[in-house]
Each structure stands twice: as C-alpha cells, then as structure tokens.
C-alpha cells in the first residue's frame, strides 16, 4: 500500500513539472537499486563476520523473510487475512523431512517440491475459502493452523508422530570449503533472492495490479475484467507455496521437525511479522523477519520473568511510532530525503 501511494503522490507532482519528476524518479530508482545492491553485498559477506550460532540465526531470518513475503502477498497485497500460515510452513517442513528421511531423496529436490505441494494445497483451500471475507476467512485459516499439528500426529507412520523426524545437516556439495552453517546460509540466501525477485516481478506487472485492485475494491476490479475467483485462489496458492518453501528450508536447517514446532503461535508470529515489517511491501518481510527473530530474545535478556510483556511493549511501541510498519516508516524517511536532495540539485541548475 505504501509503495503505491508513494508512487501516486510522485505521479501527481509530475503533473506540474514532468521532466523534473522523471529525473526525480530515475534518481530515486538508481539510489534504490544501489541500496539493494549494498544490502546484497552485506548479506553475502555476512559469513565472514559471524559464524556458528549467529549465522544460524540469520539463516532463520532469511527463512522467516520468505514465509512473511508469502503471507504478505496474500494479506498485504491481496487483502485476504490468514491466521493459518504456520500450517503451510509445517506442511512444507514435513514434505521435505518425509522425502529426505523416508524416501532418501536429496534435500535440494525437496525445496521446490514443498513449494509445489503447498501451492496445490493452498489453491484447493483457497477455492472454497473464496466465499469467506475478512474475519471469516481469518477464522477458516485459523482452523487450519489448529488442525495441522494434530493431523501430523495422526499419520504417525509417515510423520513419526509427536516424536517428529530427525534429519542430518547436509554438508556443502562439491567439496566447497564451507561449514554446514555457512553452506545452509548461502543456500537459503540464494533461494531468498530468487523468490524476492520473482515476487517483485509478479507484483510489478499486470498480475500485481490485478491482485492489488481486488484488495482495494473487488467490485471495481471485477468490472474491469479481473477474474476475482481465479486471482484470489492463485494468490492463496502462491502465498502458501512461498511459506511452504520457507518451511522446507527450516526443516533442513534445524534438522528436525515435530508438531510442536508448528503450533498456532507460529501463525500469529508470522502475522505479527508482516504488520511490523510493513503491510504490502516487498522489503517489509525482511524487517519483520529480523523483528520476530531477535526481539523475543532481547525481551528475554531484559526480563526473564516476563519476556512476553516486554515483547508486547516493543510491539505497541513499534506500532505507535511506525503505524505503517518499518518499511512504511523507512519509505517516508526516504521520500523526505530524496525530495530534499532533488530540490536542492534542481535549485542549483
């Protein structure tokens, strides 16, 4: 939402002074590209600075970011609420674990497969869920989050019941001189980059506009020829696929799956992540992932007695200071800064 309104505001200004606005847009775009490159370089260089358990934490941040991006596609961009994405995370994780442990398939193959399985499950779940709007859909997905841990226990022969499945951490292939943690970090980083680029492309084009149009006004979207039913269920499927891939990666990185890992709390944590990170933004999931990974730990460092009360305070504080999430806040700062810089440069010419 933030991105669109920002662009709209810029376009409105453009009416007054078109060439200047074009220059502004071009400058902002190249600046933004530069920022993305800097972040990428930093991310790739991270293993030089941190190791072992810290790297494991950052790998988890990337995994959360993928899951949050999936949820943001659905909730932030398409306006469908889900309290059940922990379920898709779990399905993805178990798809990977069962393939590796029971069938001896290479873990690399399990990542796209988990995405595919969740795409299908999400699409099928999205079809009937179309009839449900807003809170009702939230409840329907919530039931999914409640059900999945128990269903996992039921198919004990496959899932190992509540004991779960223990996996081995994969070693780096081709004799690369990397530790297991480093290899898993780079693998996750690569998957993250691919999925973020895909999502940005999807949302930047026709499909993205249709998805957002449904959120903003589904009757108007329908009138413009957007097939609401199809777009909504496909969005649900793609969103589930993203979250499923994140789940598969988490199974590989943690090297263990159990129903206790995918309880309702996970679904709520994911929702917290996209709201804090920035609803309907591409970068939001990254900030949200950093938040849900590190803030609970800080809260625990501050107070052992009531870590969740501290976490709650953080949450309220963030929402108060940055009502549009971290991404929305940064965007605001960014627009202010670039506008000032551009107006200064146009004054000097």
């Amino acid at each position, binding site marked *: 939402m933030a991105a669109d309104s920002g662009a709209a505001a810029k376009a409105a200004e453009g009416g007054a002074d078109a060439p200047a606005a074009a220059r502004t847009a071009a400058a902002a775009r190249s600046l933004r590209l530069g920022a993305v490159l800097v972040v990428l370089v930093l991310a790739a260089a991270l293993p030089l600075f941190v190791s*072992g*358990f*810290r790297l*494991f*934490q950052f790998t*988890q941040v990337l995994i959360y970011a993928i899951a949050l991006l999936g949820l943001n596609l659905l909730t932030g961009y398409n306006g469908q609420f889900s309290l059940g994405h922990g379920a898709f995370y779990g399905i993805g994780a178990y798809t990977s674990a069962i393939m590796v442990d029971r069938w001896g398939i290479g873990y690399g193959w399990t990542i796209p497969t988990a995405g595919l399985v969740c795409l299908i499950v999400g699409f099928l779940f999205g079809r009937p869920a179309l009839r449900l709007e807003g809170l009702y859909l939230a409840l329907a997905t919530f039931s999914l989050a*409640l059900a999945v841990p*128990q269903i996992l*226990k039921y198919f004990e022969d496959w899932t190992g*019941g*509540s*004991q*779960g499945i*223990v996996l*081995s951490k994969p070693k780096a292939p081709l004799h690369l001189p990397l530790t297991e943690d480093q290899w898993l970090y780079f693998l996750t980083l690569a998957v993250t980059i691919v999925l973020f680029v895909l999502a940005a492309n999807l949302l930047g084009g026709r499909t993205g506009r249709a998805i957002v149009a449904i959120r903003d006004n589904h009757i108007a979207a329908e009138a413009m020829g957007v097939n609401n039913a199809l777009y909504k269920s496909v969005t649900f499927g793609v969103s589930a696929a993203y979250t499923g891939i994140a789940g598969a990666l*988490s199974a590989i990185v*943690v*090297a*263990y*799956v*159990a*129903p*206790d*890992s995918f*309880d309702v*709390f996970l679904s709520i944590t994911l929702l917290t992540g996209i709201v804090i990170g920035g609803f309907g933004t591409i970068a939001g999931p990254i900030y949200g992932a950093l938040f849900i990974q590190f803030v609970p730990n800080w809260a*625990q460092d501050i107070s*052992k007695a009531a*870590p*969740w009360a501290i976490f709650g305070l953080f949450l309220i504080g963030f929402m108060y200071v940055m009502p549009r999430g971290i991404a929305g806040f940064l965007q605001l700062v960014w627009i202010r800064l670039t506008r000032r810089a551009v107006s200064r440069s146009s004054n000097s010419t």
Partner: protein
Amino acid sequence: MSLLKRFTAGVLLASLAALAPAGAATAQTVVGVTATEIKIGHTNPYSGNASAYGTIGKTIAAYFKKVNDEGGVNGRKINFISYDDGYSPPKTVEMVRKLVEQDQVAFVFQTLGTPPNTAIQKYLNQQKVPQLFVATGATKWNDPKNFPWTMGYQPNYQTEGRVYAAYALSHVKDAKIGILYQNDDYGKDYLKGFEDGLGDAKKQIVMKQTYEVTDPTIDSQIVNLKNSGANVFFNITTPKFAAQAIKKAHEIGWKPLHFLNNVSSSLGTVLKPAGLDASRDLITALYMKEVTDPQWRNDKGFQDWVAFMKKYYPDGALDDQANGFGYNVAILMTQVLKQCGNDFSRENIMKQAASVKNFELPLLLPGIKVNTSPTDFAPIEQEQLAKFDGEKWALFGEVIEAVRK
C-alpha cells in the same frame, strides 16, 4: 639462603603439581569452567503451552544459588544460564547453540520435553557436549552406545506401564481393561509399556479412548469406558484431565481397579480437586515423595526442601511437585560436579555422571537410589506401588526394580 632455596624448590614443585593435572585436563576438552566458575546451560518453557514446567528451572536456579552461597563446588561458583524455549524445538536448537557456541557452557542440563531434547540430541553428541539428566519420561534417553553424551533422569513411562500390567494380571480375574490416554508420545509410551506388560492378555483390552490436550473435557470418554464393561482402568492423563476422570467415574458410579499414572499423582493438583473420597483406592507407582502428602510432613528430606523453598524460592508453590522435582535433580547435578574433583573436562563430567552409586535424594521414596554406570544411563529405575487411602498414598509391596528389558 638455604631457606630461600628450599622455598623456591617448594614453589616450583607446587606449581608443577598444579600444572600437571591441568596439563592432562587440557588434552581433553575443558570448556566453561575456570578456577572460579562452572557454566551450566539450560532451557525450559517459561512461556507457552508447557509453561507450568517453568518452575523447575526456577527451583534449580534457586538451588544453585544456595550452593554458591555455601561456597560453591570445589571452590567454583555455579553460573546457571537458563533460556526460554517455549517448548518449541527450533527455538531449543537456537538457544542450545547459543549456550554452547556463545556462552561456552561446560554442558547442558535438564532441558525439558521429549521433542525439544530430540531436536538437540544429535547436535550435542556431535559436539561432544554432555546433555545431562533430561526432563522427559521417554524411554529413548538410555542409549549410551549411540548417544554417549545424553543421559536421562526419571523412570520412564514404559516401565511404569509394565508395573501396572503385572499388578492387574495378578490381582484381577477375568480382567476387562479400559484405557484412556492422551494422544501424544507421552500417552503412547505409557500405552506401549502397559501392552507389552500384558503380553497375550492384550486381547483383554475392551476399549481404548483418547483425548487431545486441547479438549475441554473427557466426560464422554469415561461414560464410554464404563459402558464397555471394563473392570480395570488405566488412566493415562495429565493433571487437569486426571482430576476430571476420577470425578466423573465416581459420579457415574464406575468402580474399576483404577491405575492413575505417576504424572498425575499429586494430591494438591489432582486428588483434592477430584475429591479425596472419589480418589479412594486409586493405585499409582511412585518414585518421589508427594510434596502434598501428609505422611511426609515430619520427614527430614521434606522439611529441608520446605526450608530451602522458603529461603531461596519464596514465590514457588509448596504444593507443586515440580518444585520438588527440580530440587532433587539439582542436588544430583551438584553431586556429579563434586565427584569431578578438579577435572572438569567434558569427558570427565560425563564419566562422573555415569558413575553415581546408591546416591539418595531427599525427595525420593525411602529405599530408592540413583545408580548409573557406563552402560546404564537411566539414573532412577525404581518405583513403588501405592494405594490412596482417602488421606495419603499408602505405599505397599516392595520397591520394584523396573529395569528396562
């Protein structure tokens, strides 16, 4: 001059003597222990569904504070680092890796829950970090061959199930058995032990009912079990449900031979809410003194525990068995550290944990002792049957050596 010479020689000798064992120890891995400190890592669910167990971690922390106040172990203070894992295995992995890699603890102790411990077992064994006295009743922790760095603590559920099966077979003619169990690994572990113990008599099970932890009540399961005509009832439930089951069975006038699993043997949290009269004639297997049982009121071990609680953990409930549990296991841990002498290499800590002989803990039943060996990583393996007489658990029969077959 000669005095000075003798002095120098003495210093040299002393420093050699001091260096020798230290040198030998560094050949092995000493991590997390200095001349003044022993770092111990721990995770516990202080939040989330299983947060009722969080009090165990607090009791242990309080006990180590007591040890430190009294001078520590072999001149070293215990630094007990405890993190919340919310009973979520990925969080346990993260926190235990933090303990091992960042906090550099000597070993990990009393991590709680079967799934969280399963999640970290492989990692800790690969890193050769002791995972001592884990707080779970699953059967798999006594496996020194495959997991030489992992050790259990309490009697496991399967053995307990076998004890009840043996009793039922020898005391009830034409037993018709009904079972209610929680639908998870804990429930199934008990069930397996019980069925194994029944052997051929397994076909005498007339009904099995299950429930989920999230269910509000189990009344209908109890009615079904009564209607099945069962005269033996194995009640595999956690405290809240156990109280419901005992109460409901009493209300509808069902009087089977009623085995209540040890998990729910607390007077304070189960039998009193269910009604002491309704609880009459229940049978359970115990290894600890029930802290709410009046028969221990004048017992030395119990009184020591109360004094400890009042001084070091005044917020802790005196009717919560978990606080007694934490007290016992912290004392056992301290004993192992004492046995280590001056060699706190991870190898020696593991070796000492595996050589505890006939050690008594204040809140274990009289006659029950802690024993471990390099091939026996199950510290407590004895239990005794008890029948509720309307006021207290009346112990009967011998202490049973419930060794895993």
